């Protein structure tokens, strides 16, 4: 190809789309908004989701819940590890997008992406171990086996962190789905591109459609109907500023959603198991044990 032919080639821009129910729809409203890099230069147009997109995402997440929460923890771990493999394969793309979004040099952005992939692997390992940490046999004063086991809360709405567009996102999404919840994620408002690209990774990683749904747009506009939604079981307010967080917490009270308030987090630090346990419910069963009267039969 000669120099002049190279120059004549038209650039192919990527159309960023939402990720809902395993598909890549545009916003139902047809709106988009301009996304710029940290210096204000235009990068792409991202879909600006409406409340109806939020509603559709919740329907998709609810539909996926039975299958995902019913999958074995081992299987979930395998699938999440597969996600990490796919992330690794697209490392260059994420380095570029994270660098643009957060104004980082190539090496710093590379470190952030590596940390995010490592975190994903770390959470993938937790899927079949969390039950041993937060569940187990309880000693009770009676002839019973008393066993507690963690169960996923259900459909979790997540407001992803606004500043850390990729490492922060992975740090809030991975623990939620690792334990069997399904998620509706509102991406960082100013830097949604790494999140929307993550959708393309999830779509090619054996993750069932609807387990993670990604919505870009104005955080307040999408989060308000999610917080009030009767079919959402929990909400993580990581990306909500103070006034909005308060409003959302009030809206979330109506159906007794589990709410995780925003708090300052160093996303680069070791996260611990706290986010894994935030969206778990404890199921306890009592089982008769020991001698059953005159028959003398042991359990």
């Amino acid at each position: 190809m000669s120099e002049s032919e190279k120059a004549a080639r038209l650039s192919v821009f990527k159309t960023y789309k939402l990720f809902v129910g395993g598909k890549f729809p545009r916003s139902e409203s047809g709106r988009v908004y301009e996304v710029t890099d940290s210096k204000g230069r235009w990068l792409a147009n991202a879909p600006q989701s409406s409340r109806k997109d939020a509603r559709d995402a919740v329907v998709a997440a609810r539909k996926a819940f039975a299958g995902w929460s019913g999958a074995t923890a081992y299987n979930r771990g395998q699938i999440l590890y597969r996600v990490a493999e796919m992330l690794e394969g697209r490392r260059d793309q994420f380095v570029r997008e994270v660098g643009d979004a957060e104004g980082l040099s190539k090496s710093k952005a590379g470190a952030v992406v590596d940390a995010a992939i490592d975190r994903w692997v770390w959470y993938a390992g937790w899927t079949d171990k969390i039950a041993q940490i937060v569940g187990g046999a309880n000693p009770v004063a009676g002839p019973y086996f008393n066993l507690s086991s963690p169960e996923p809360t259900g459909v979790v709405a997540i407001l992803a962190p606004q500043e850390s567009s990729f490492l922060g996102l992975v740090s809030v999404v991975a623990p939620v789905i690792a334990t069997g919840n399904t998620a509706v994620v509102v991406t960082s408002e100013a830097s949604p591109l790494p999140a929307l690209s993550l959708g393309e990774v999830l779509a090619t990683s054996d993750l069932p459609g609807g387990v993670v749904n990604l919505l870009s747009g104005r955080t307040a506009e999408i989060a308000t109907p999610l917080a009030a939604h009767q079919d959402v079981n929990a909400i993580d307010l990581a990306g909500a500023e103070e006034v909005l967080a308060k409003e959302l917490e009030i809206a979330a009270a109506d159906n007794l959603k589990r709410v995780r308030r925003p708090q300052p987090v160093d996303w680069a630090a070791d996260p611990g198991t706290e986010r894994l346990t935030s969206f778990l419910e404890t199921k306890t069963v009592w089982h008769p044990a020991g001698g059953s009267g005159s028959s003398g039969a042991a359990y």
Partner: protein
Amino acid sequence: MPLTVPAHGPEAAARLASMSDVTASDGSLRRFLHGLPGVDAVGLEGRAATLGTRSIKTTAKAYAIDLAISMIDLTTLEGADTPGKVRALCAKGVHPDPLDRSTPKVAAICVYPDMVKVAKESLGDSGVKVASVATAFPAGRAALPVKLADVADAVAAGADEVDMVIDRGAFLAGHYLKVYDEIRAVKEACRRPDSTSAHLKVIFETGELSTYDNIRRASWLGMLAGADFIKTSTGKVAVNATPPNTLILLEAVRDFRETVGVQVGVKPAGGIRTTKDAIKFLVLVNETVGEDWLSNDWFRFGASSLLNDLLMQRQKLSTGRYSGPDYVTVD
């Protein structure tokens, strides 16, 4: 003499008799049905699709939702139906949303003939009617005496309405008079000892009639034979009620009223699951036959899961919060 009489009224028979030359023989009936104008399939589907794009919002939507709820024939037609399930469905039909007593009740509960008694007892004087499918539903493949006994059974048990299936085999083979006579016989079997009658809905199973022209012919055949309602489908085959085939039925009842002066109801059934779908059908009714048909005396939905979606939408409109399946019954 009033311009239009209802199909279930006493004057309808005389009006239908004015068409007796058409129904005199198989030949004349065939000539008439095949003389009906052909259906423009592209135009029909285009019109149904266009009417489906109407935006119905806020107060109009609230009205449409309540109207749709009041038009539902809440249906359970499973081999596994138990008396308990039928009773639960009846309770739901009378108070679809127990938390909001302003919710209208459904039009009828639709069951198999052997469950009519249970439904009748649990509905009492609530005003919700009992509809029973009959005539060897859903295939209709039984001898006429068996079908008639099926109908008589349902009527004796107290059914207010009978949903019969036509003999699609005979229809497709061109034996129109046989189908006509069968509908007449079933209509006769709907008569109660006190000379009132259970209303007769005639199911064409449009998904098995192959062409739009056949659906139009079946509609006229059913109405000529005295149907009080014409109904698209049983809900037991792959293709059930669709906007285009319901539009043909609506055009048929409109034209039938124009020519014969008898008003017949329409019931799409099967496959209508969302509020959005239901509202599309209501738009079709309003735009094709007008307000005269916008009540549960003249238009019904044969549905089961539709009601839950309507209730969730109704809750959304009244509270501003999206509702979820946890807030409606599982049935």
